[in-house]
């Protein structure tokens, strides 16, 4: 009886069981991710001041902004890792703000998240890190090993399968983190500054992996970065499975649907609000001084 009474405590029970099937796809005609007047603040003050935007199925949305602009906060709010002070966050048809943590845990199994520093579990090997989510699904060891190796081959990290994170370089850890996020082929992936702190060559490698994930698996992505090169890389290139490499999109560099590439749009944050939202090329040709400052950093 004690177990029953404890189990009935409201904080222990899900507020509303959410069918797994509902979590894996967007509702037709509705955005995959939608923020409506979201506000959040901390001791220092309000960080996000009424953020509203949408991400549609198959789209890649790049969040640009200075350090402290709130890019990571938006990612964590979308993944339900933080709760907003006000406003609504909808992801794949679910109102994240109204979901209990227990439901959010089930929901997040269908979402990939790549953290800024990788956030690998340092007491586990690469294989154990990548298979972490799969172990919850009670797969056989053979199938587990097969899927882990498959995704490590995808990020070109199979030789490091038995290594620990502290034996890997920053770029390698980032790649393993991407493998961990993609192992279950989620329909939605959040990349939080995946190229932060990496050299230009390694950053290109990471962007290539993101392109492959986008173009081969058709994931919807939200990518936070302070590097405008990342936005243009995703907007102007695609992964060609036939050629097995990244190729440029269109003669004029436009990376939008008209040239066969998935839509890639940019959202620039400034002082807690959206300063610009549109295609990467619109930003490129903008005469706004603040946007020009961002573009100058890419030169």
């Amino acid at each position, binding site marked *: 009886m004690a*177990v029953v009474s*404890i*189990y009935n*405590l*409201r*904080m*222990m*029970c*899900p*507020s509303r069981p959410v069918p797994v099937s509902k979590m894996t796809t967007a509702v037709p005609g509705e955005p995959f991710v939608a923020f409506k007047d979201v506000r959040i*603040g*901390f*001791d220092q003050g309000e960080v996000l001041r009424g953020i509203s935007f949408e991400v549609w199925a198959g789209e890649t949305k790049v969040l640009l902004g200075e350090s402290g602009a709130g890019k990571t906060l938006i990612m*964590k709010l979308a*993944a339900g*890792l*933080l*709760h907003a002070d006000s406003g609504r966050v909808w992801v794949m048809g679910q109102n994240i703000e109204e979901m*209990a*943590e*227990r439901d*959010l*845990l*089930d*929901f*997040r*199994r269908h*979402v990939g*998240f790549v*953290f*800024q*520093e990788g*956030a*690998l*579990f*340092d007491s586990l090997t690469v294989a154990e890190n990548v298979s*972490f*989510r799969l172990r*919850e699904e009670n797969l056989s060891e053979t199938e587990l090993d097969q899927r882990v190796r498959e995704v490590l081959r995808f990020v070109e990290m199979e030789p490091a399968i038995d290594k620990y994170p502290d034996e890997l370089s920053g770029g390698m850890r980032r790649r393993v983190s991407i493998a*961990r996020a993609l192992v279950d082929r989620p329909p939605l992936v959040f990349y939080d500054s995946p190229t932060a702190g990496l050299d230009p060559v390694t950053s290109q490698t990471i962007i290539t992996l993101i392109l492959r994930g986008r173009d081969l698996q058709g994931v919807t992505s939200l990518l936070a970065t302070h590097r405008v090169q990342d936005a243009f890389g995703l907007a102007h290139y695609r992964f060609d499975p036939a050629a097995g490499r990244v190729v440029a999109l269109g003669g004029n560099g436009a990376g939008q649907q008209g040239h066969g590439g998935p839509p890639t749009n940019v959202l620039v944050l400034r002082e807690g609000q959206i300063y610009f939202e549109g295609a990467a090329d619109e930003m490129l040709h903008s005469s706004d001084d603040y946007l020009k400052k961002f573009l100058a950093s890419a030169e």
Partner: protein
Amino acid sequence: MPARASAALAGGCLLDAPRSGRYASGDPAESPSAGFHTMPESEIATLPSAAGNVLKRMILAVQDYSLLSLQSLVNIFTPPTYWSDTLQQMDIIGVGSLPIIVMASLSIGGVLVLNTASQFQRFGMTDLTGDAVALALVRELGPTIAALLVAGRNASGMASELGSMIVTEQVDAMRALGTDPIRKLMTPRVVATLLMMPLLVAVFDFVGLIGGFAAAYFTLRLGAVQFWTRAIDALEFGDLVQGFTKPIVFAFIVSTIGCFKGLRVKGGTQGVGRATTSAVVISSVMVLVSDLFLAKLLLYIFR
């Protein structure tokens, strides 16, 4: 009720970092009525509100700790359960603590005899040595000192390990992968400590008696039969209940405080250091405080 408390009760995440500035200050203060002031208004308003803020933070911390501890216990009865993690923690906490438990108990048992020997010799009652050592160890010193040793070794380890995971976003990564960190990280540690602590206390008591006997043999020339017969005969059922109820309570205190401090780390690596120290200090003090109440309660029940 602070907003975060109601959010927690409504199923919010117990791992959400408390945004203290929003709750410590409470509602905006009303404008003070116009009137004379010998001190600036800000100073008059600051002192009681600062005291109030401190009190509110303490109450919020106690509430936070209580919810987290309750959740860690409730998780035992609902799936999924991480038995391999629990076994691993049992090895770390139980087997790993054995060396210090053995060394400490040998010393404590010997010291008990050395300090009491002169008194017993004065009254010519050295044959009571076994009684004194057995009663002191089983009723009090075994559970308490073992708990303090486990607090120093394992509560600090829990706080530092979980704190490091918090500051490197590994706990957030765990949540992002759909795994409940309290269920995966805290519950195995609490369960392992609850299971291992009584066993460690049993080892402490036995090895302590061995240490006591060794000291009695070499200082008092007390025979083995005399010592061990008196030691075993002195113990009653109530003494054993006392001696093995306390470890369960102490185990809960040590493990939950260690995990709580780790999961509430703020301030990077410096915060991890503070949390580690705080976990040891608070769990040690709480062991001693709870020992006082437990001793009184158990003596009342069994006398």
